[in-house]
Each structure stands twice: as structure tokens, then as C-alpha cells.
């Protein structure tokens, strides 16, 4: 083991990495146990196009929604206390990047306009603001860890990074 070539500085937020394989066809076929690598026979989407009902929601939709909500919370906190911008902007951006990556994994885009509005700033001073964000990140960490534990292997790495990132946000907000 040689340490001379550092691995994983982890600074990139887009493009590299996770599988872009669409899961849509698999889910439409009801193959919810999709164990990976089995999308082959169904890759022609037109087989199911037409009057089919919309596909069932992906189990990761709520996690992507949570990422968007967390991003909005941080942006609302910055709006309420602009002095926190340097500290919270990278965290808000990380949540937005998580939402994008989870949607890439799902194979469906995020609902449009979903990230705007919603989060209302917490009343109270900066300490209360940060405490509320810490609590939200802590809850988010738990839900991401649960999603990681329950996910098929090909989704586990991204979800692990999301859970770990939320844990680092708790630390950064302390």
C-alpha cells in the first residue's frame, strides 16, 4: 500500500461516477427486486409507451425530495442571515448535487420548480437557525443511511456518500 497517489479528494460535484443506467424500464416491468444488470431485454422503451399508467414512484424519490428540501432550508437561512452565506452555500450546493445525482440514478428528472419556496426561516437568532439546520441534517442522515442499507448494490455507494455528507454537515454546523 503506497500513499503517494492520493485517492478521492472528493471535490467534484457533478458528472463523474454513478451509473446512468435507466431503472425505469425495470420498474415498469414490476421487477422491483432488480438485482442489477438485468435491464437488457427491456431497453426499448416503446414496448411500454402509449396508454400505460405512470410508472410507480421510485423508492428513492423521497430521498431526492429531502435533498431539495434541505437545500431550500439552507438557502432560506442564508436569506435570513446573509452572514452565514460562506458557511451554508457549499452545503446547499451539496444537497442540490445530491438531488441531481439521485435523479440520475432513478432515471427520471426532478419535478420542475420543486426546490423553490417551502422552507421558512426559523424564528430566533443565528444559534437557533443553526440548531434547526443541525437537527434537519441529523434526520436526513438517518433517512439516507436507511436508504443506503435497503438499496440494491449498484445504488449503495451514492447513498452512502449522501448519508456521510449529511453527517459532515452536522459537524460543519456545530
Amino acid at each position: 500500500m503506497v500513499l503517494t497517489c492520493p485517492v478521492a479528494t472528493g471535490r467534484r460535484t457533478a458528472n463523474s461516477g454513478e451509473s446512468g443506467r435507466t431503472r425505469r424500464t425495470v420498474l415498469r416491468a414490476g421487477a422491483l427486486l432488480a438485482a442489477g444488470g438485468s435491464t437488457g431485454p427491456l431497453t426499448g422503451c416503446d414496448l411500454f409507451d402509449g396508454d400505460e399508467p405512470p410508472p410507480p414512484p421510485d423508492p428513492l424519490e423521497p430521498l431526492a425530495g429531502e435533498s431539495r428540501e434541505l437545500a431550500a432550508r439552507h438557502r432560506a437561512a442564508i436569506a435570513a442571515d446573509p452572514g452565514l452565506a460562506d458557511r451554508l452555500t457549499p452545503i446547499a450546493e451539496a444537497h442540490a448535487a445530491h438531488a441531481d445525482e439521485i435523479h440520475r440514478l432513478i432515471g427520471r428528472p426532478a419535478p420542475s420548480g420543486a426546490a423553490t419556496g417551502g422552507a421558512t426561516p426559523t424564528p430566533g437568532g443565528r444559534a437557533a437557525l443553526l440548531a434547526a439546520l443541525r437537527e434537519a441534517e441529523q434526520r436526513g442522515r438517518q433517512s439516507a443511511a436507511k436508504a443506503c442499507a435497503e438499496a440494491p448494490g449498484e445504488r449503495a455507494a451514492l447513498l452512502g456518500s449522501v448519508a456521510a455528507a449529511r453527517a459532515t454537515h452536522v459537524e460543519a454546523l456545530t
Partner: protein
Amino acid sequence: MSRRQAPADARQALADALTAEYAAIYAYGPIGVRLTGADRRGARSAEAAHRARRDALVLQLSAGGGQVPADRAGYALPFPVTDRAEALRLAVEIEERTAAFWRAVLPVTSGADRTRALNALTDCAVWATRWRRAARVTPVTVAFPGRPG
């Protein structure tokens, strides 16, 4: 998730994580001597976490009956550590690097093994954040801990 993984994959990923933990423990030697006060206490605490994971991995891999990677007498550091700034920079690198190995365990494990790997990834990521803060590196977080850059 109920899929049974090919044992060789999980075993290899865990063996790789073990060698990363060996290297991390080694690196905290030169890191620790360049730190004082709260930084040094932090280094001891982080090192203890790496040692605990090493011990658990040695036990786990031994129970499987196969070869367990051996520790080495020394590991090449990416740069010499002669002061606090370099010690903190190496600590960040070590934690990021170890996080990447644990992240690689996630896809090839399930159940308790995956949970342990996630806990390890998370712990390394949190320590990387603490060391960035100590070094006044901003931002103190990265978007995707453990993801190859």
C-alpha cells in the same frame, strides 16, 4: 439487497479497506507528533477509530478462513510532515482516502456488513471535515465523501 454477493468481491473490498486502515494508522504516527493540544487529542481519537476498525476487520477476515493482508513496517507518505500545517493536510488526505475504500465496500455487501462500512465511511468523512476546519480549509465539507475525484 437480498442478493447474495459473490464472497470474493466483498472479501476483496474488505481486505482493501484493511490495508487502507493499516496505512491510516501508520500515518497518524507522524501526524500526531506535529500536533499539540486539542489537535493531538483529536489525532489520538481518530487513530483509535482506525485501530478499532482494523481489529474488527482482522477478526472478520480471519473468521472467513482465508488470507488476511498483513500490516507492513512502513508506508510511503505522499509528502514529508514537518509542521502542523502538513500534519493537518495529511490527516485530511488520509481520512478522504480511507473513506473511499469503505465506500467501495458498500455495493458488494449487505446487511450488517454494509452498515459497518457506512459507519466507517461516515466516521472518516466527519474526521476529514474536522481536520479541514482545524487547517482553516474552506469549505470544510465535500459534496460526495469517498467518491473518487
